[in-house]
């Protein structure tokens, strides 16, 4: 409505109705009066009338032809008899497409995600045991292939030269890459060796105890390989610990203790059985003080491996060997040419695969439970745990430092166990805190670090808060190796290893598969219901699928003709 100066203009709808002739006579007269009074309304009315007149003046389109049917259009059966359509529930087309897409995506993701085992709990009990047994068997075989030392206490009079140790060292290290990949083998081999007393301990003299561990160069060691290593250490342990396939700490034996007579007997029995077993090596440390070397009665081959390794680490062998050779060693040493390097190699492989450090004596003294990952594993004392990282430092300059008093020998097994304990439970402690609780080895000077870092670690262990560079590095363990889980205890780590939760990706895959399955199921159910309903009532939709009307075409006389 328009209002100009109080005049109410005519509504366009009324004007349009007037133009179309749809107003009553009374309305028509009223509108005409208003239009006569108002020029705007009149002009508006005239414009509309002219517009309509122009539209009506449009010439009609001439017909191109006549559309009259000469005969009845063919009532094609295909056009008339349409299939019966159900007027009830109709499944939309996108439902099928969506369900198919989801199902296809689920299948693709399922296939691409790997195998079914990727989302199963890892570290299952039996599976874990099988892996450990296989690895143990593998390690035992390798160690059994090492020639048995023929020398008795006192026979090891020379330190393995670096030039000889290096080749032995490199080859097993090269083979160690496939250590974890070795297929499962029967556990009877290792068990049989244990039962036959193959793991004999030859008494050796230890002039000075130096526990050395090489920092594993390959830091990408898989975590599960730690367990096989532990199992692999079992055959090399003492015979009385054969049933406990765990690391047997050899540091419990006091230094300068003569070897028990049973050791040669066991060794002889092992020869009788024809099984070549790894024989202990001995940590030979040059006696700086000039004291006669003490004899370590129960040192397994792994100890020799650790010592030889300390003497000739890969890549740093020349310097270490030279320094070791430069050190007077009146006492017996490892029979290096045959025994040391292979054992060292096996030990090194295991250590490299595991990334562990020697176990402190007090840890080694107490038998470990069957499974390290179980909660029953005893925790080392703080001193032991803190001393372990110090002993794991290996540096190119193996400066042998005199010890105040001979202490127990830390074998590589013990160091490994301690390393496990440290990494799992006590690695969160900063280096400074580690120095607060010096272990007996460190205090007694048993563990002698080599090189500046090792010395720093030793100082730290003895109370001097000297931070170790690698230990303070984030993302690493206190020994410079990749940290297993700095915040988890050993029990937690064990639980985690055994029952690792599926990852988020696996959960998403499972969820997607479930959604796809549900979608397919829903669609299938709806289709089934629809078919049932279609079978019950075949309702038709009017206009689209009407029943053919036979009387539609009337029998006209003309058509009949």
């Amino acid at each position: 409505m328009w209002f100009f100066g109080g005049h109410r203009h005519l509504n366009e709808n009324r004007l349009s109705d007037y133009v179309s002739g749809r107003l009553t006579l009374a309305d028509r007269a009223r509108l005409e009066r208003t239009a006569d009074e108002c020029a705007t309304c009149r002009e508006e009315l005239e414009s509309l009338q002219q517009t309509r007149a122009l539209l009506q003046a449009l010439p009609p389109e001439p017909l191109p032809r006549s559309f009259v049917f000469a005969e009845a259009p063919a009532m094609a059966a295909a056009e008339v008899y349409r299939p019966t359509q159900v007027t009830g529930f109709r499944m939309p087309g996108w439902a099928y497409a969506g369900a198919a897409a989801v199902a296809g995506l689920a299948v693709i993701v399922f296939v691409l995600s790997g195998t079914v085992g990727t989302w199963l709990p890892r570290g299952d009990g039996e599976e874990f045991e099988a892996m450990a047994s296989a690895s143990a068997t593998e390690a035992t075989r390798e160690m059994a292939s090492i020639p048995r030392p023929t020398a008795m206490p006192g026979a090891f009079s020379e330190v393995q030269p670096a030039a000889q140790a290096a080749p032995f060292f490199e080859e097993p290290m090269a083979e160690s890459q496939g250590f974890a990949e070795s297929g499962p083998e029967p556990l009877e081999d290792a068990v049989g060796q244990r039962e036959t007393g193959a793991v004999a301990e030859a008494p050796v003299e230890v002039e000075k105890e130096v526990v050395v561990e090489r920092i594993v160069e390959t830091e990408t060691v898989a975590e599960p390989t730690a367990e096989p290593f532990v199992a692999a250490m079992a055959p090399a342990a003492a015979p009385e610990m054969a049933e406990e396939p765990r690391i047997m700490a050899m540091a419990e034996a006091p230094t300068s203790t003569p070897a028990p007579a049973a050791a040669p007997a066991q060794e002889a029995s092992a020869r009788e059985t024809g099984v070549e077993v790894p024989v202990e090596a001995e940590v030979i440390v040059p006696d700086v003080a000039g004291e006669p070397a003490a004899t370590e009665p129960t040192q397994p081959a792994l100890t020799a491996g650790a010592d030889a390794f300390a003497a000739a680490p890969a890549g740093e062998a020349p310097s270490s060997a030279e320094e070791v050779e430069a050190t007077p060693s009146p006492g017996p040493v490892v029979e290096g040419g045959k025994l040391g390097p292979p054992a060292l190699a096996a030990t090194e492989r295991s250590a490299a695969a595991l990334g562990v450090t020697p176990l402190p004596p007090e840890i080694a003294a107490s038998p470990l439970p069957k499974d390290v990952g179980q909660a029953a594993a005893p925790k080392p004392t703080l001193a032991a745990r803190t001393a372990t990282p110090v002993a794991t430092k290996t540096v190119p300059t193996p400066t042998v430092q005199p010890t105040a008093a001979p202490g127990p020998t830390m074998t590589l097994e013990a160091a490994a166990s301690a390393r496990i304990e440290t990494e799992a439970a006590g690695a969160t402690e900063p280096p400074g805190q580690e120095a607060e609780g010096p272990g007996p080895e460190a205090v007694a000077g048993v563990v002698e670090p080599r090189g500046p870092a090792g010395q720093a670690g030793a100082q730290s262990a003895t109370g001097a808060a000297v931070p170790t560079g690698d230990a303070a590095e984030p993302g690493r363990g206190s020994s410079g190796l990749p940290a297993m889980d700095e915040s988890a205890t050993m029990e937690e780590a064990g639980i985690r290893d055994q029952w690792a939760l599926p990852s988020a990706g696996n959960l998403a895959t499972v969820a997607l598969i479930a959604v796809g399955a549900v979608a397919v199921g829903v669609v299938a159910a709806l289709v089934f219901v629809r078919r049932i309903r279609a079978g019950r009532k075949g309702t038709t939709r009017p206009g689209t699928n009407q029943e053919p009307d036979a009387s539609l075409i009337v029998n006209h006389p003309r058509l009949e003709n």
Partner: protein
Amino acid sequence: MANTDYRLQDLSQICSDHPTLPVKDRRDATYCFNCIVTDFQAQAYNVACRILYDRHLAEDAVQESLTSAYRSFGQFRGDNLRGWLMRIVTNNCRDMLRASRSRPSVPLDPVAADSELEDGSIAAAILPSREESPEEFAERSELRRTIKAGLAALPEERKMAIMLVDVEGFSYEEAATALDCSVGTIKSRISRGRRELRDFLRGAGELLPSVFRQEE
């Protein structure tokens, strides 16, 4: 023409100018479908032409619409036959227009684009009367094009309403039936359509008669 004009009193009745094609509606009333075609084919064709702007498409649309009407004549309730028939035509034209928009085509013969003057029949239809001067003929032709352009500028629903009511002379009820809407909707569409078309014609005032020219 009332619907009763197309009914057959008996089946023996024979149409004189075309073949008798009897059909029955929903109420069992018998019709001669060719009589219906004869009366409404021109309107149907015009409606199709003004919707599709293509004579060939309009011809196909009318042919298809009449065939569909014959086949579905049983749904006819017996009232507003023209509206019911034009509804079929407009629906077919909409479908064809939608299909042509999705699959645009270009005529192979460029002359056919302006077939209005090239085609003999069309040219004969628009030939000026002998009383009309060439200037007037040119002005009328230009006015017709402008009106067509104005109709084409309208929204489809309003254009159809204007075309059916103002061009083809349909009543509001018939247009409502043809367009499947209420009479009020038709009134509103026609009112707005006329106003918009008037404004369009005012914009091209120089080609329009003096009544539409802007006063200076």
